[in-house]
């Protein structure tokens, strides 16, 4: 099943400067592994030593933060959109 992944600028060096990538995975963990097959090295940037997404990165499935869903166990459907967004300051 194809999921659309939005890639932030600092990671686009792994994706041939593509801002979006089509990828497969039945949950977020699997999607990250699949991404790493297509774009070798990207997983070690997204995830820390424990294999979980780094604390300054936010992952969203269809605009919802995965921390409000089931984290990296969040399941994915065909046509879902996953965005990877670094945390920013605000006000």
């Amino acid at each position, binding site marked *: 099943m194809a999921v659309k992944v939005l890639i932030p600028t600092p990671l686009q060096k792994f994706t041939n400067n593509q801002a979006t990538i089509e990828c497969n995975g039945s949950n977020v963990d699997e999607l990250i592994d699949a991404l790493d097959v297509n774009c070798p090295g990207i997983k070690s940037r997204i995830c820390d030593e424990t294999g979980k997404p780094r604390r300054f990165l*936010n992952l969203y499935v269809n605009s919802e933060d995965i921390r409000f869903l089931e984290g990296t166990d969040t399941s994915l459907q065909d046509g879902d959109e996953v965005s990877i967004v*670094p945390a*920013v300051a*605000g006000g």
Partner: protein
Amino acid sequence: MNLHLFPIPDYFSRVCLTGIFGCATINITVAELYKREKQAMTQATKTKAPTFTKLVSKEGSTEYPLKAIHICEETFAPLEVAYDYDAIRAQVSRESIQAGPNSIWRYKAFLPVESENPIDVGTGMTPLVKSHRLARRLGLKNLYIKNDAVNMPTLSFKDRVVSVALTRARELGFSTVSCASTGNLANSTAAIAAHAGLDCCVFIPADLEAGKVLGTLIYNPTVMAVKGNYDQVNRLCCEVGNSYGWGFVNINLRPYYSEGSKTLGFEVAEQLGWKLPDRIVAPLASGSLYTKIYKGFQEFIKVGLVEDKQVRFNGAQAEGCSPIVQAFQEGRDFVSPVKPNTIAKSIAIGNPADGIYALDIARKTGGHIESVNDAEIVEGIKLLAETEGIFTETAGGTTIAVLKKQVEAGIIDPEETTVVYITGNGLKTQEAVQGYIGEPLTIEPKLDSFEHALERSRTLERLEWQQTLV
């Protein structure tokens, strides 16, 4: 340097002035003037070298050049501006600062800009008010209010950060500036961009207070009202920022932008007679302001402008959006995001980027972070207005209510010099207090009608009065 540094309208006005005051120079072309100014600026920059040296990751210390980037490529941690403090020490003294402009630019050596003529719209140097009536009400002896409700030009502390960000944006060659905002930042970005002649497009959540929307639209930027909360607006802006090449003050310009908040620390130290307070109380949204006040105090100590002293850092959040308070109370060193639900929209950031750094500062300074509910926030706004004549917005109400709560809990010693930061103006969030304040007494233009009304207002409870026809 390039053309973006010199907005066209400035040139026209200068040509006109030359024409009025001297025939000899009347034939100077715009291009010639431009060239001269460029040379003058290059020389000026050479004589006083910039004091900021690089960007450094807050995790792992990887170094980056001084470009429009905001996160470490390896860890995604925020980047922080680093300075040459020996160079700053050589450039500034208490006297040189006091002789500087009556704005944040008196502290220019501590700010990440190179221009000799930064965008100066009179931002900063807001009153530090010694509180008497609020202090007495709370039982405090040395309470001061830093009143950024009257900061210029848009009545919030955001004018500090935006003045720095847009000056830097111009230096980096941006012609369009943008931001994701809960309101105050949009007001400030739109106003200062208008002053500087920069194109502006701002993004806000669609449900903002009317005053904040109008207070942005008046400067005629493009305003995108996003159907979502602030965190969703920010996410969208990151995606826009990836592809449009705009200067987003709180995203790719963030390392420069956030440094502007240090001036809240510098001014308080200077206004207290070059001394640090014992304690501060400040609102927490992303946590940036709080951490930068701390950095400001540390820098003044580092260059010898004030004596070293432990300042306790207290922080305030609204209960309906209190991820940092929850982490503080549970002893966590990470912040779990929440979905905001509070009237304090200006500080309703459910996913605070600097939350972990704010936690660290609260703990290492012996400070305390606390939250209050919406009813207490409204009471806080009213309390400050009735005792000090300062009308603040919901963020200020949150801060005052937390101050009160912490005094009552015995956390704040009455003898301490405590500075409470009021960061925004109440006229922008009138919805928050409507229904909680009195109403005018409508009378006939006759003396007896007035006397009758006055009599009744003194004898009747307000609620009874509102139901009584004159």
